[in-house]
């Protein structure tokens, strides 16, 4: 027989963000438990609302199968004495397995003769197992924060547990968790259906809840919220989509309903992102936009299924929205009374990091750095980049951003205020964009000046953090340095002038370090550069992998010249294009032999042609001398396929050389000369990749 199981933990309103992770944990724990208990089932499902976390299992087997298995014990020698009587070892084994010592058997195994026990275990009823296990489940769930209540624990949960409802088929499972006893009662919507509801069978749970104004499924609730919002928006325009907010709102409700309210169009003087933020962050409300993308003076609020008395609910929400917009309007007006230039003074009181100084010191560095970067990357944008960098952190001390109102609008507000104060479009755009990319996959700044400021902002942060030992390790990356380094890689990869690259990661890093006052960074510059470059190499590998290049290719590309980002992508693409050609495998073998020697070469000197042996050695040298300028020119142009092809032409001479010539010649001078020759070639090959990382793929 199979029956369904319901276990519902009823609680006082659980934080929205806690619900899904808890449901995932419940599902995993249940699946593991049924597996361990050898109970078959037709699927585990977990669903939740702010007031309940529910575990539902279909077709759960009613009783464990009896278990019969043969268990291997000690060797015969240890189990029986010379007199043939069982020893303490055998007695202990039999007792431990719950069998009579006389019932032990001896069997021959590849390892010798061993004692075995035939163990029978009668299957237990599922309801018994559940009554033992279910009370443990709530205590196994981990929440970001948990609490005690009433007499003070030790039981902890996200919020106080109000009831436990547990049925297996029609059987009520009976257990207690501290003072809370399980039962067959669930509850409906807190206000719309407050009376306890008795369940006759686990299977009727979701239907009964639906009748009691609770939509149990999170996805269903989300869909309904969205549909309600879109319907409410229709009269005014279209809903401004916000998936993250939708996820939150769906977990703040048991029964979705939405309504539209209006606000004074005078507030539309506020920038669109500010209004959206006001509605979102303060009221969990959505915005509505017109066809042309401009906002309508409308907000969309949700209710927890309350549809009566809508005018009062609408007016209540509207009053709060009005007050919030009024605050924002006040901030917006006040903020414009002080220029971003003057606010730089206030940045002297804002500590960026206690070891790294104030934000004011930081913008001083950023101004110099952004200008320097622009000289290299976008000379025309130099003045704009420097100006934008000078002002880019001033919005941190505006009311809008600084007074904890809308921290996430940093950059955005600076750009708006800059524009309103008459800064050039390029400067205000650069300020707006300079935090980008803000997350993995986010856009990089569109404008050249914006990229220069964004690069300066991120590299200054990176070398500062590394310089005082704040280096990410494992999952620990509190300052999101990986994301920032990846952002730098993405920006340097994106646009390069034809035929080359104007700025390397190493140059960028050194320039940023150089701008810190002496003694501020505790790691010495050279060591710091090396650390940061290692970090960048990993980010580059990551970026190449995400671009779809296979691991060995990524390793080969990143192992050489990883400080040149755009070029690394060109090299990767070139290798991808040639790696399926027939000549690829032999070339990789040949190049790797050359490069391997390099590790043994030590200091190399210029090649002395007089010491070259006739035949394969001289041929290789001459062919190499002819090929080298060609390869270097192709590389400089970013034509790495042609560079590879040219080098691949040396494959045969290389093989001939290794076949005919003994590199480790007895004569020290000859030996050193040969190593020098190979070292020079290895350097040229390294312009494309470290081919040794590709050898494995060939085998």
């Amino acid at each position, binding site marked *: 027989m199979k029956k369904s199981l319901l276990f519902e933990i009823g609680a*006082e*309103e659980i*934080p*929205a*963000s806690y619900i899904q992770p808890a449901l995932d944990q419940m599902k995993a724990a249940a699946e593991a438990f049924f597996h361990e208990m050898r109970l078959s089932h037709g699927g585990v499902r977990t669903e939740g609302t*702010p007031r309940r976390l529910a575990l539902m299992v279909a077709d759960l087997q009613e009783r464990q199968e009896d278990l019969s298995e043969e268990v291997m014990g000690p060797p015969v020698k240890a189990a029986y004495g010379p007199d043939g009587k069982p020893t303490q070892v055998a007695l202990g084994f039999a007792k431990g397995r719950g069998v009579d010592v006389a019932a032990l058997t001896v069997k021959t195994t590849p390892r010798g003769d061993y004692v075995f026990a035939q163990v029978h275990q009668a299957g237990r009823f599922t309801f018994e197992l559940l009554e033992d296990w279910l009370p443990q489940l709530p205590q196994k769930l981990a929440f970001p*924060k948990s*609490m*005690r*209540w*009433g*007499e*003070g*624990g030790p039981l902890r949960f996200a*919020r*106080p547990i*109000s009831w436990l409802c547990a049925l297996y088929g029609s059987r009520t499972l009976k257990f207690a968790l501290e003072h809370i006893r399980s039962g067959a009662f669930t509850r409906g919507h*807190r*206000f*719309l259906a407050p009376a306890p509801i008795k369940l006759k069978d686990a299977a009727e749970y979701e239907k009964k809840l639906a009748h009691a104004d609770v939509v149990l499924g999170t996805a269903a609730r989300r869909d309904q919220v969205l549909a309600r919002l879109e319907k409410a928006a229709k009269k005014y325009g279209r809903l401004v989509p916000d998936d993250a907010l939708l996820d939150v709102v769906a977990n*703040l409700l048991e029964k979705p309903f939405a309504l539209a309210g209006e606000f*004074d169009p*005078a507030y539309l003087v506020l920038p669109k992102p500010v209004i959206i933020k006001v509605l979102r962050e303060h*009221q969990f*409300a959505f915005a509505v936009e017109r066809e042309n993308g401009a906002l309508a003076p409308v907000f969309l*609020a949700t*209710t*927890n299924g*309350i549809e*009566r*008395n809508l005018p*009062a*609910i609408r*007016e*209540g*929400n509207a*009053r*709060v*929205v*009005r*007050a919030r917009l*009024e*605050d924002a*309007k*006040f901030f*917006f*007006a*006040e903020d*414009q*009374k002080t220029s971003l230039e003057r606010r730089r003074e206030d940045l002297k*009181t*804002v*500590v960026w990091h*206690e070891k790294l100084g104030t934000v004011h010191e930081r913008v001083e560095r950023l101004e110099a750095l952004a200008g320097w970067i622009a000289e290299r990357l976008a000379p025309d944008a130099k003045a704009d980049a420097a100006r934008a960098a000078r002002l880019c952190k001033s919005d941190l001390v505006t009311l809008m951003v600084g007074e904890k109102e809308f921290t996430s609008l940093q950059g955005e507000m600076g750009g708006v205020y800059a524009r309103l104060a008459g800064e050039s479009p390029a400067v205000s755009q650069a300020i707006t964009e300079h935090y980008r990319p803000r997350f993995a996959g986010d856009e990089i700044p569109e404008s050249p000046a914006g990229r220069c400021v964004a690069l300066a902002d991120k590299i200054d942060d990176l070398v500062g953090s590394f310089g005082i030992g704040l280096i990410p390790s494992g999952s620990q990356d509190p300052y999101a340095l990986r994301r920032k380094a990846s952002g730098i890689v993405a920006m340097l990869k994106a646009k390069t002038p034809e035929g080359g690259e104007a700025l390397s990661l190493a140059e960028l890093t050194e320039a940023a370090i150089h701008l810190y006052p002496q003694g501020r960074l505790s790691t010495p510059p050279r060591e710091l550069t090396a650390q940061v470059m290692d970090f960048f190499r990993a980010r580059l590998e990551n970026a190449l992998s995400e671009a779809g290049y296979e691991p060995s290719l990524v390793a080969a590309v990143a192992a050489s010249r990883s400080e040149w980002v755009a070029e690394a992508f060109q090299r990767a693409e070139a290798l991808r294009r040639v790696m399926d050609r027939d000549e690829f495998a032999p070339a990789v073998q040949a190049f790797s032999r050359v490069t391997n020697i390099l590790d043994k070469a030590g200091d190399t000197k210029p090649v002395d042609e007089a010491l070259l042996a006739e035949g394969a050695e001289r041929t290789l040298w001459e062919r190499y001398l002819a090929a080298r300028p060609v390869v270097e020119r192709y590389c400089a142009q970013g034509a790495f396929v042609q560079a590879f092809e040219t080098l691949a032409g040396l494959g045969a001479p290389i093989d001939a050389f290794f076949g005919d010539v003994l590199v480790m010649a007895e004569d020290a001078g000859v030996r050193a000369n040969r190593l020098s020759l190979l070292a020079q070639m290895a350097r040229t090959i390294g312009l494309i990749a470290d081919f040794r990382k590709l050898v494995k793929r060939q085998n």
Partner: protein
Amino acid sequence: MAPKTKVKPKPKSKPKPKPKPKPKLAPGTSFQDIILTLQKFWAGHGCVIAQPYDLEKGAGTFNPNTFLRSLGPEPWNAAYVEPSRRPRDGRYGQNPNRTQMFHQFQVILKPCPNDIMDLYLQSLGELGIVAQDHDIRFLEDDWESPSLGASGLGWQVWLDGLEITQFTYFQQVGGVELKPISGEITYGLERLAMYLQKADSFWDMAYGSGTSYAEMFRENERQFSRYNFEAAEAAVLFKDFENHESEARRLIELGLVLPAYDFVVKASHTFNLLDARGAISVTQRTGYIGRVRSLARKTAVAYLKLREELGHPLLKTGAA
């Protein structure tokens, strides 16, 4: 851009009565009526109706009826109004709903009963707020007072989008883990009154017995905003802070826990004044908060000892 002024709802094209009549106040919704209703309700549920503690403070939590009484094993149920001062929030009486002084109605239930949320909702019913007719939500809001070394988990309660109450299960006070747990309900009285009176601004609210809220407090807001932001003498306040701190320490040494706690409260408020005055830099802030917290911790430990020495009298009488 114009300086901040109250936005008066512009008359729309809809038909409207000629002179805008003052909306009639619904019965029981004046500021003082709300207080009387809540006092009566909670007195009926076993709370002692205490009075505000006669010191300036940032919140009802600072009242010894909460801070000290939530410590230790003895039960305690109390309710009281607490005028609360947040010097930084002053807006010279210009802002419709932000002031440097406002009123909390504080309920402390220890141990927190299982039906505490139902009781709270019943109290709203007494104020005429029927749950089925409004959107009432309990939204995650964990509370922490760094200067009191106190923290708890709970919600802010929304009524049709307006936050009207903080609801907190205390977990720790003065750095001490609590057992049993106190439930704290903090009604924002101005918010509730604004909602019930359908007012857009504190300054449009009725206080009661024919007196307006503005008459009661608007001049206070103007004067205290000027004091907090402009006139307060930082040098004097710094000295006050030092004195309050050393007095608190000295009195704890003498076993005078209750007077010592007064000086903790005074030190905390003095810090808030200095903060509003802009006399404390960002880097100094955490230092000052840490000093108040250290006093709060010492007081909490001393208070636990005091109640123990007194033999936990409320346990014996079974008071609830």
